Every structure is written in structure tokens, then in C-alpha cells.
């Protein structure tokens, strides 16, 4: 064919039909071909360097279900290295925190920021279920973002609460007091909450029935104050402030608490008020470490600005 090419020098393939219908060669530019072969070379190189092919059926053992590549790179490995890096950074802070008291942490702005940021996760895992994601509380579970602390809001008291848990107790008075007395006491605590002053008759009944034994002589939940500022309390609510331990609060709610008490076994309608001890148990990975409790203490303390 090519010997008697009727169109010499035309760059055709030598294939003719019907005399002049012919196939031309139209090669792409050389740079294009270079780029093309360079891409092919790249993929070959890639297959050698990086994981690329799935393992043949029957050859995969779960771990090695793909060709490894001589660089040994995998995305999970890279991810783990990243995690290691982050942990190395965190370790510096964690080491410092381990040596310090919660009060010292609060004094150090950098460590405080670190503690607040990293305890947010802990708080979410262990505390938020009851106390709400921002410490806003839930019906039956105290608000942590306010300034009212049943067991004291000092750093020491908070550590104690998280570590050992708390369980309040209040006798059910339905059988002990008359309906009229319950009614009078309920009105008395509503008065206290609203203006901080109760009627003289109310105070008399309060003292006569022994309420002050737990709620204190001033009905503020404080039995005594220690020289270091900590208070002695059994966890009985402060009746003189406008925060109600059991929501919604007010007359009916107070009556219910007086009648059925708190954590009274055998009393069906009693109030529940139990916090587990976190130094012994934690739902996710066993109990909280002292370091975690320390950081949570700082976090909880700062939720409402500290006390």
C-alpha cells in the first residue's frame, strides 16, 4: 500500500478506501505525549510507593487487605501520628496540672484555659446527663451555674462532692405533722424565698418541729461555719434564697417535699437526690482519675463564676 501511496508526504496511515478516502495520522503534540507518559509513570510509581490494590480474594486477613507500598504509609498511621502529636502537647499541661492544686490552676490563666477547654469533654461525658451541658440543671438535679451550693461551693467541697457523691435525706412528714402544720410550713418557706423573712409563727413552728436541725438556725442550710470559710451542712437546702432545690418550687412543690421527704425508702413519692461517687465509678472507662476530678472541680467551680 505505502509503496504506491497516491498522497505522498501527507502523513497518512496508508489505508485507502474508494480511492481517496483515507486515514490520516494526527499525532498529538509531543509535550502532550510526554505529559501522558509521565502520568502513566506516576501511577506506576504510586502503586509501588503507596497502598493501591485490594488484596486478592482469600489473601486478605483483615489487617492486610491491600498492597502495602514500600513507603509503608497508611492514612490510619498518619492519623495516629497526629494524635500522638496532640497528646505530646497536652502532656506538658497535664504534667503541670498534676503538680498543682485546683486553686493554683485557677490562678494561672493559661492552665485555666486548658483545663476549661479539655474538661468540657469530661463534663459532657459524666456530668451533663443530669446537670445539663452548661450546668443549667434539670428538674430534680441542681443548677451548677448559679451561686447556690447545697454542700458548699469551695474547691475543696466540690472535689469532695465529685469524688464521694452525695445523698440527701429528709424525713417524710406526712405522718408526723398535721395537714395544717404542713400548710403553715409550706407558706413559711415561700415567704422566706420571696422576701427572706418569715412570720413569727412560722419561725416558731420551724424551730418546734426540728427543721433547724438540718436547715440551720437561720434556715439557710448552714449549721456552722469553719474558720477556713467552709460551711458545715448536711446538704439541706437554703430556704432563704429564691432558688428552689426541687423545681418548679413554690407552695405546692414545698408541700410535696415536706410530706414525702427526700430519699426516703418506702415512701413512694419521695424526692430523689442522689449523686454517684465518681472516684469509684464512671460509666465510660471506669472511675475518674484524681487528675480528672481535679480538672472537673475547676470546671464546675468556674461554671457560675466560682464561690
Amino acid at each position, binding site marked *: 500500500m505505502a509503496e504506491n501511496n*497516491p*498522497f505522498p508526504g501527507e502523513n497518512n496511515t496508508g489505508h485507502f478506501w*474508494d*480511492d*481517496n478516502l483515507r486515514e490520516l495520522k494526527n499525532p498529538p*503534540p*509531543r*509535550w502532550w505525549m510526554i505529559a501522558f507518559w509521565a502520568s502513566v509513570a506516576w501511577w506506576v510509581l504510586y502503586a509501588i510507593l503507596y497502598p493501591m490494590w485490594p488484596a486478592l480474594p482469600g489473601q486478605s486477613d483483615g489487617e492486610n487487605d491491600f498492597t502495602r507500598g514500600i513507603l509503608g504509609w497508611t492514612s490510619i498511621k498518619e492519623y495516629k501520628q497526629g494524635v500522638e502529636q496532640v497528646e505530646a502537647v497536652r502532656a506538658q499541661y497535664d504534667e503541670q496540672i498534676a503538680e498543682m492544686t485546683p486553686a493554683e490552676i485557677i490562678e494561672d*490563666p493559661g492552665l485555666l*484555659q486548658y483545663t*476549661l477547654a479539655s474538661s468540657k469533654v469530661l463534663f459532657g461525658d459524666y456530668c451533663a446527663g443530669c446537670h*445539663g*451541658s*452548661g*450546668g*443549667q*440543671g434539670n428538674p430534680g438535679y441542681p*443548677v451548677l*451555674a*448559679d*451561686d*447556690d451550693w447545697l454542700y458548699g461551693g469551695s474547691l475543696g467541697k466540690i472535689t469532695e462532692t465529685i469524688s464521694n457523691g452525695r445523698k440527701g435525706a429528709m424525713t417524710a412528714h406526712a405522718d408526723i405533722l398535721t395537714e395544717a402544720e404542713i400548710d403553715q410550713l409550706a407558706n413559711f418557706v415561700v415567704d422566706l424565698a420571696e422576701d427572706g423573712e418569715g412570720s413569727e409563727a412560722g419561725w416558731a413552728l420551724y424551730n418546734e418541729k426540728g427543721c433547724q436541725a438540718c436547715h440551720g438556725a437561720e434556715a439557710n442550710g448552714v449549721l456552722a461555719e469553719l474558720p477556713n470559710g467552709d460551711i458545715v451542712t448536711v446538704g439541706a437546702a*437554703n430556704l432563704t*434564697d*429564691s*432558688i428552689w432545690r426541687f423545681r418548679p418550687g413554690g407552695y405546692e412543690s414545698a408541700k410535696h417535699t415536706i410530706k414525702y421527704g427526700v430519699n426516703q425508702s418506702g415512701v413512694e413519692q419521695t424526692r430523689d437526690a442522689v449523686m454517684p461517687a465518681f472516684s469509684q465509678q464512671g460509666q465510660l472507662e471506669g472511675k475518674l482519675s484524681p487528675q480528672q476530678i481535679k480538672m472537673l472541680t475547676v470546671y464546675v467551680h*468556674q461554671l*457560675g*463564676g466560682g464561690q
Partner: protein
Amino acid sequence: MSENLSGGAQPAGMDEIYAEAEQWHVNTGNETIHAKRISGRWRTIKWLAASVWLIFFLGPYLRWDGRQAVLFDIPNRQYHLFGVTVLPQDFWMLSLLLLFFAILLAVATALAGRVYCGYFCFQTVWTDVFTLIEEKLEGNPAQRRKLASAPLTAEKIRVKAIKHLSWMVIGFVTGFSFVAWFYGAGKLWQDFFVGNANAAVYAAVALFTVGTYVLAGWLREQVCFWLCPYARIQGVMLDRTTVVPTYDEGRGEPRGRMQKGETEATRTTGDCVDCNQCVAVCPTGVDIRNGQQEGCITCGLCIDACNAVMDKLGRPRGLIRYASLDEIEGQSVPPMIARPRVWVYGAILVLALSGIIYGLSSLAAIELKVLHERAPLFVQLSDGSIQNKYTLKVLNKTNEDLMVSVSVEADVPVTVTGAEEPIAAKHGEVNPGIVFVKIDRDHLDAESVPLTFVASATQPDGTEVQATRESAFFGPRP
């Protein structure tokens, strides 16, 4: 059909079409273009324009206030421009800057075609330098072609090796200088050669070295023909009034070589003597006498070449000259100022530029962000008052650490806790702080009360800086 055409007979008119096809030449780089170097006015201007690139090489060594004058510090997210430090938060200015340069390119193209390509584009400039080296080592275009087809001798290897090595060195210096803008020149010199710089630095330098070598050494005008998007869109930017290198057909045609014994008075040809000098000097291998075309980068070298020929012949210069199509065809050319394009482009340029100037001159020294705590939105305290919690973020854009005090302004009396001590704001960083605001129940007559947070600080030189932020205080329904 087949009977008619058998034996290669062709219908009338085909000859012309084939003749046209002869002319149709697409430069796909199969043949290296060895352009002749000559001196001239545009050549000089080309070097002057190219020398602006020295800033690229020398700029990183400029110092200002004890640090590199222009440093794009990516790891620390700080961009120093002489006295000003720009942080990522101010990056809206970058979009204006990009807009400015994009429009500048459009204006330049509309008015004078691809002047950017011809005089300033790094592809042109680097290729120019690379071919200069080639010429110094291998000789003029004829010698270069001869050497290319000559058998491989020790001498040829030596010359070629020196050439490729010097290309590589230029590529390396290019990459090194580029990285110096981001890494700091002094630090780069210290770290680079002892292996202390990070992988990104080495990768960038390697990429630039290879890229420069391949693009300016091997691909050259092929980049302009086939890779560069700007070269492709220029077609829509040119119009009949755009000034580009143009061959004055009316004057030049019919072209013809000088005949023996012919004088200026007796010649029957036009001004073009068909000496092909304009093609010989063209770095992209274009014959400008075929008219404006995709390969022409508006470098003006053919103008220099033709003017030199015209001078020799005693004919007036400007057979090839910068002219618009309208001008060549003898139509009236409106002055630049009367073209709407100039006004529209100009207005955008002025807008973008004033935006940048406004941005740079009003860079706030500190910025304040206030995030209101949402869970709980508010909290009732034991004395019955309502408390809200706010997370503050103070961005210190100055070069010094500042003590930033925060206060809260509102129409009702507020008590602020957490802001007694000023926030120690590290420079170039976002510094967090937590503030509690308390309002007495009696003063809350709406579910929300507007608050204004004010952050203020005194710089070491005594100037006061301030930032304010609106926020709101939320409480229960009154």
C-alpha cells in the same frame, strides 16, 4: 464520486484551499525556536520591565523595625508588610487586591493587548534569561541549530552540561527566593543547607527548581500557546482599538526582495523587502505579517528588527509598529479617555484600591468578640438577680502583648464579675476570657437588654486602643 476524482483530479478551487492549508501552521513545539537577539528600543524596555523581578530575589533581604520587611509567616498566621501586620481576619483585603490585579490585567489587555506577556510575565522573563545563557554558551541561532544536529562530542556534552546546570541553578535560586518570603531569608540561609528546614520548604524549592527548569528551559513558548489560560482569554479582551504590534499591510505589500539595479524610485514592490528578520527575532516563531494571532505576545521585538532594516534602506520606520486595527485601516481613533471600557475598568480599579487603602489605614489594633452562653441562657442567683455568662475573645493585632480591660455598658445598672483583672492579650493571638453579668430582677423589664462590651488597652507607646461589641442580656419573661 470515485470516477470523477480518480487519478487525483480535483475540482476547481481546491488549489486555493490547499494553498491556504500550507500557510496554516500550528506550533506544537516539535521544532525548537531559536530566536535571533538584536538590540533596539523595545528590547531595552523589555530588560527594564524584566528588572522589576529583581525585587523578587532581593526583597526578602529588606529589613524593617528589626525584622524582615515583608514576611508571610504562614505557621504563625501573620503577614508583615513593612510597618503593618495583617492577620487572617483582615483577609478580605486580599480579595480586593486580587480583584485589583485581575482588572489591571484586563485594562492593560484591552488597551495594549498582551503587554503583560511580552514584558513582565515570569514565563517570558525567565525564558529570555535562559535563552540568553544558551546564546552565550552555544552561539547564535545558526550555530545552535548546527550544534543540535552535530554528533555527540566531549565538547558538545561540556557545553550542554554547563547550560543545563546554569538553568538548574537559576531554578533553584528562584525557588529559594520564593520560599524566603514565607520562611524568612536569614533563617532560610541558616536552616536550608544543613537540613534543618521543614519538608514543605524542601518540597517547595524542589518544585520551583524543576518547574523553572522545565517551563523556561524546555517548554518556553509552548506554555504561552497551550498551557496559559490568560493567553486563551485575551481574544475576548482585544478589540479594534487595542494597540498591538501590527504590520502595515498597505505600506508593505506587495512584498518583494530587492532586485539588482533597482532604485527607490523604480521599484514596484511595497516597503517590505521580505528579509524575514521579523520572523527570525520572534521568540514565539510568529510571522506578524499574517496579522495579529494567538502566538504573538506583544513583545515588540519584530518592531525593533524591522526598524533596523528600514533604517538601513533609508525607508521610514514603523512598517511594523504598535497600532490598532482602526488606525492601520485609516479610521478615526477615539482618544483613550473617550472609551467607555477605560472608564468602567478604571472605576473598578479605583474602588478596589480605595478599599485596600481604607483597610490598611483602619486596621484595628484589637478586636473583640463576645459569645453569649446558651446553656443556660441565664441563671437565677440566690438573691433573685439574673446572671448571664459571656465568653470573650480578644484578638491582639499589635506587635506587643497588651493588658486589655473589659467593661460593659448598658441602660440599666449591671454588675460585672470576671473582668476585674485585665486580660493579658498576647500579640497576634486570640485571647479568651469569661465574664459574668448580673442584673437585678427589678431592672429587667424585657426578656432581653442590649449590652455593649468595650475592650480597651494602652499600647507601650501610650496610644489608647479600643474595640466594642454589641451583645445582649437575657432574662426570664418579666
